[in-house]
């Protein structure tokens, strides 16, 4: 029995008591999010390549206020759901997590410290990866080198908004990154550092970054966004004691009025 067969059987069982399960579907060469219903052919259900499904669940729950949905979730998907709950965007009582761990290979690719959800229905949990790149960046780069590095990286930005659009935690209806007086509409490349600083403060700086890495994966300019956000996540934890998606009772740092320990 492969992991995928196990998973398909679990999803079939869950569908008996749920209105639907959100997972990926393979259709020829295309893989896309899909809402499976009872009786659907589950042979097309796949778990690669990865896609941030929490956002899809959020949209579906909004569109169907009575529905109870399952989600085939990786560790970062579950963290995203919890974080969405902290921001009052998702009602976790209406979501059942069907947890799938990432493989060791995937964990290395994402430099992920926690490549598994809190409960796992199939497969084996693998250890998180210690992010050496992250730990070494600040010690190996002086301030001038950091500036040169980020200036060069962000000079590649074509302002496609891909990083924002894919982010499972970017749920605002209006976006500061489209405000003319802050970032200059229609201006490419966008002002450095203002544009990127607003983006960072509104995601990782607000305690929203689950480190799923999607922003970096979709970036057509290969800007290493996860490096910046991982560093900022570290600061958020140090200053406010907040870990994204770790709990559903914590208040995100923008809700707080005191730094940790003050």
């Amino acid at each position, binding site marked *: 029995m492969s992991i995928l067969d196990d998973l398909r059987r679990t999803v079939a069982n869950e569908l008996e008591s749920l209105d639907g399960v959100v997972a990926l579907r393979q259709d020829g060469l295309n893989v896309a999010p899909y809402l499976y219903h009872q009786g659907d052919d589950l042979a097309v259900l796949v778990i690669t390549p990865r896609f941030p499904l929490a956002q899809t669940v959020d949209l579906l729950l909004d569109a169907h206020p009575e529905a109870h949905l399952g989600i085939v979730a990786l560790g970062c998907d579950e963290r995203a759901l919890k974080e969405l709950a902290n*921001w*009052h*965007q998702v009602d976790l009582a209406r979501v059942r997590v069907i947890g799938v761990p990432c493989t060791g290979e995937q964990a290395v690719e994402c430099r992920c410290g926690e490549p598994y959800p809190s409960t796992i229905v199939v497969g084996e949990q693998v250890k998180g990866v210690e992010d050496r790149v992250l730990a070494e960046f*600040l010690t190996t*780069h002086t*301030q*001038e*080198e*950091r*500036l*040169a*590095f*980020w*200036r060069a990286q962000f000079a590649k930005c074509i302002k496609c908004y891909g990083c924002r659009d894919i982010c499972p935690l970017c*749920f*605002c*209806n*209006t*976006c*500061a990154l489209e*405000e003319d*007086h*802050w970032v200059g509409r229609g201006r490419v490349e966008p*002002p*450095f*550092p*203002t544009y*990127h*600083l*607003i983006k*960072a*403060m*509104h995601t990782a*700086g*607000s305690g929203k970054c689950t480190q799923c890495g999607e922003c970096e994966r979709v970036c057509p300019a290969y800007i290493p966004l996860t490096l*910046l956000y991982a*560093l*900022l996540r570290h*600061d*958020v934890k140090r*200053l*406010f004691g907040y870990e994204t998606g770790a709990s559903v009772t914590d*208040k*995100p*740092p*923008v*809700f*707080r*009025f*005191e*730094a940790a320990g*003050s």
Partner: protein
Amino acid sequence: MSHHQSATGGHTESFADQVRAIPGGEHLEKCYACGTCVGQCLIQQKVEPTYNPRRLLRLVMMDMRDEAFQSPTTWLCSACDLCYPACPQEIHISGVIGAVKQLAVQAGYQSPLTPARVDTATCFACGTCIEVCPYKAITRVESQVEVPVPLAKGRTMSVQKEHAQVNPNLCMSCGLCASSCLASCITLDGYTDTQVDEQARALNWSPGWSVQGGEGWSPHVLVFICNWSTRAEADMAYLDSPPPGVRVLRVPCSGRVTPTFLVTALQKGIDGVMVIGCQPGECHYQHGNKVEQARLALTRNLLDLLGFEQERIRFAWMPTDSRRELAKLFEQMMSHVRELGAVTWRPELG
């Protein structure tokens, strides 16, 4: 309507009895009208000369209900509690005023302040403003809202949705909600993002200002200062004519300042930005200064990660009893920025 029937009927309940019955209003009768509270009060000094907690407490004792309800004292107290430690009778005066305000609202009176405004069409009810509001003036409600139809310019449709709602009688117009909302769905008139940006653009920097540094460069510093953080006449006069190279923007509370305000200023070629708020424990709006301090700590960290000099952004406290401290603060900031040199953030004049 000087006396109201009490719930038990028979005898009448005085205004003072009603105030005492509300939690916070218990210590009303301990006041012997010394007026120490008035001497401490920033509202009386800066905003409303007729503002007077001592008089309000007298009005209550004398059963002058309508006069009390119409008094600015009832509505403008922000519970900063500067008067509380000064009161020889240890009366929690803002608690008493809060009790009077509660009765005034019950009697149909309304706050004269302009409350924060929610854009219900774009608000997504995340609750940031609800958590951060010092006055618990914001709640999450569900109602029928007109929202734009996607891709159909100018057309709207009616949907049932959750959004934030401001109680206009509790809102004290500090703007902390506006600076906390990631999508600017809640704003404070006079201090919207656009208005602050326009004010910053309209600042009259000295002619011949060289944004590129080099020959003839001198430091330019923008100061955001809380309206309440200065009380000495000399300091207020100093703010009206700051030294060359310094420009001042006043905000209702240091907590209204978002990191974006500061970074866009630096982006435009201003060499340093300082935010001045009230000392801890003395914030006019309870915790706006702490929110700002925490926010700026994170902003400075992020700037450092990006390789920018985080020292170009500074935060300072002003104790309410300080005299002529501003000149020192400004001079420190200027010499600090002089050492850092001209900002080189791809400068452009906004």
